[in-house]
């Protein structure tokens, strides 16, 4: 197992270096430069443009800029935002818990609903439940997030008045961030009603963010289950007279879970993409919206370091997924 973990970790190094190049290069390939965007309609004289570019270090060759970026990175310096002038790492750490809280809630929601639905649809293959749930999954998978989010807001917050429109907690509660996770902070704040308010603010955005992963997980679980249930060992188990519940719970589900775990792991990337829109709709102060704003302003340091941090997180999650395989299936460890 130790060798397995080490080999996975070693593989991370070239991946990480590759990501630094992509993160650095990506925002610079886009046309338009931050100095011009800052000046806007007013324009900027060539002298001032050169002066500002030099001050920001953009006048040097790209290769040099890249190695400086890398050099600072190894010293833990991710640079300062061109817009707010604040350290990128600090901003990331302020905003990241909000995204994690939302993402975790969404992925748990998607898994808790998606897996049972998929299993049940596979067992009752061809039934009305199978057909309805798989059609719903197809619709969910193709849902335009922005439209879906607004629709839910208008219906549940506007018409029914059940949930708040946006934000993380009612504005009447005010306590300093201690962990950045609103559910934890509101509990420890000791303010009456704060936790309930935080939960009610989390419902709609996590439903919106969970929609696509839920659909994918349900469909993946169904097809994995169907495949496994045709295997010889399942037939053998049945022939032994094992009860249906045990056949499915122990023999089929455990084997079917391998591709499902992969899918859940891969959904982390999908969640990040969904978070960008979900955070914008629900005024959720997370890193998705932060990245979009920075890209549109060509805030190079934020985009390159932010991408790197996000990619780092996704890599970490994928590593955990790989390690989980090892636990579920010893054959993977050996190979």
């Amino acid at each position, binding site marked *: 197992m130790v060798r397995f973990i080490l080999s996975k970790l070693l593989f991370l190094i070239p991946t990480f270096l590759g990501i630094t190049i992509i993160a650095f290069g990506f925002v610079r390939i*886009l046309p338009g430069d931050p100095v*011009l965007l800052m000046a806007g309609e007013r324009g900027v004289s060539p002298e001032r443009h050169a002066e500002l570019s030099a001050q920001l270090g953009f006048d040097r060759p790209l290769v040099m800029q890249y190695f400086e970026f890398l050099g600072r990175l190894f010293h833990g310096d991710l640079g300062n935002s061109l817009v707010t002038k*604040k350290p990128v790492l600090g901003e990331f750490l302020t905003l990241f818990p909000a995204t994690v809280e939302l993402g975790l809630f969404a992925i748990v929601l998607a898994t808790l609903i998606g897996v049972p639905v998929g299993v049940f649809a596979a067992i009752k293959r061809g039934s009305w439940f199978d057909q309805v749930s798989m059609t719903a999954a197809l619709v969910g998978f193709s849902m335009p997030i922005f439209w879906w989010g*607004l629709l839910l*807001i208008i219906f549940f917050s506007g018409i029914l008045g059940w949930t708040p429109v*946006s934000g993380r907690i009612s504005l*009447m509660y005010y306590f300093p961030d201690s962990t950045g996770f609103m559910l934890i902070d509101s509990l420890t704040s000791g303010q009456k*009603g704060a936790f309930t308010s935080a939960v009610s603010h989390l419902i709609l955005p996590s439903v919106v963010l969970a929609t696509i992963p839920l659909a994918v997980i349900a469909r993946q679980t169904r097809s994995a289950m169907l495949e496994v249930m045709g295997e010889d060992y399942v037939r053998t188990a049945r022939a032994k007279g094992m009860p249906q519940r045990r056949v499915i719970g122990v023999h089929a589900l455990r084997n079917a879970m391998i591709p499902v775990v992969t899918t859940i792991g891969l959904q982390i990337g999908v969640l990040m993409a969904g978070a960008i829109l979900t955070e914008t709709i629900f005024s959720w102060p997370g890193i998705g*919206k932060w990245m979009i704003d920075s890209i549109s302003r060509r805030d190079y340091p934020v985009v390159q370091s932010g991408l790197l941090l996000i990619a780092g997180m996704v890599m970490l999650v994928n590593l955990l997924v790989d390690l989980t395989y090892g636990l579920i299936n010893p054959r993977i460890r050996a190979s």
Partner: protein
Amino acid sequence: MKYFSRSLIAVSAVALMSAAAAAEAKTFVYCSEASPEGFDPAPYTAGGTFDASAHPIYNRLTEFKKGTTEVEPGLAESWDVSEDGTEYTFHLREGVKWHSNEAFTPSRDFNADDVIFSFERQSDADNPWHQYIPGVTYEYYTSMAMPSLVKSIEKIDDYTVKFTLNQPEAPFLANIAMAFASIVSKEYADTLEAAGRQEDLNNMPIGTGPFTFLAYQKDAVIRYRKNPDYWGTAPKIDDLIFAITPDSAVRLQKLKAGECHLMPYPAPADIESIRADDSLTLDEQPGLNVGYLAYNTTVAPFDNPKVRKALNMAINKEAIVQAVFQGAAEPAKNPIPPTMWSYNDAIQDDPYDPEASKAMLEEEGVTDLSMKIWAMPVQRPYMPNARRTAELMQEDLSKVGVNAEIVSYEWGEYLSKSMEPGRDGAVLLGWTGDNGDPDNFLSVLLSCDSAGDGGANRAFWCNEEFSQLLQDAKVTSDQAERTAIYEQAQEVFKDQAPWFTIAHSTQYVPMSNKVSGFVMSPLGDFTFETVDLAE
């Protein structure tokens, strides 16, 4: 589900009860659009940043009178201008208290040292505060040409400061009423420097304004409290909260749900539903802006004013105002909006007359003309949909035999490419005023100086007579005289037609019926010291 909805109702009931308890302390919630870049107004240029920093927290020597672009006394009670218009002596208000916070309690009132510090940190590259955050620049100070304008700032005594200018400049008093010229505390800066926490000038602001800063949760909420020692009329609300809500449809939902009291920038498509809602009020006024199509006046045949005029007559302005602005705009005949002083209402707009246009083009020997129309890739208050505008223009021009091709670029590239000399095509763009002075439109967008490198004159139009008039107006301090000069300049503009002027869009501010006392600013600022909330 039943339990679920009941518990949510219980939550809302609790919220209502607490809201009732909180009603004694009046809390006003503004659903703002963008996150502030920081709380020191000098390094930034975005209006949303100033609404969160300069307006609630700080004051300036001069201020814009509420709801107008007129300049009135602020931290300077009065001022004298020398005969030649190059020396401004400001007499400062006494007894103005600075805010305090956990790290700072002021030991003295506002005085001349604060004024000098506030300007010198921007002008003097050797000032230790010039680069108090790595990479900080003072773009507004630079772009308002302050470095070349201000020769020196002297302290005469604790409550008298003299600015000496290199040349007379009538808009100077309006310039220093702008957000970038907000006065910050020298004593606070010294305290921060001693503690090695300079960046807190930008994070934990101390000002003299109507509200004191409490806290900012990035991209979510900004909290302020009424300044009990405010030198002006005290605010009527106790707490001011900015709930940052980037999407306009969501802002409207929040307003309707009572989660905030006032919102900026509603979507044009929502205006009708806002009007129909009994719980909401909609304030409106013409914006201090202009949308235009700038010809390249250096390239044939667009160097011929008659050709430009003929093209202007080919385009149906009213149709654009209806289709693109959905009627929420006034057709523009001048380069400055009607809310600005010196607007020349006597000017007749070129009529929409395709027949006459065709005849004029033939007269000038222009046949089979092909041209490009540049459509901006972004939405702006002065131009809600540039692509659609360009399409309507294309259609109109085809009726007079002009073949127009629409082009577009990424925004940053659009801004730079459209300034390249010899540019092929006419450019759609616009402008929103900074300080309400006509010079801020005319000189910035149409003078010979701005037709060069890095200027904003995208027609590359350099008319000696026009530029001379602007120069004359700049060195005249009498507003009646300046008005006469600018009126004449607008005649020259109309006659020469470097632009097709499109529209001045209307600004809308939806708010709850409970709100009273909100004053719309022609400059597009959102300020809350005059607002009140009904119980």
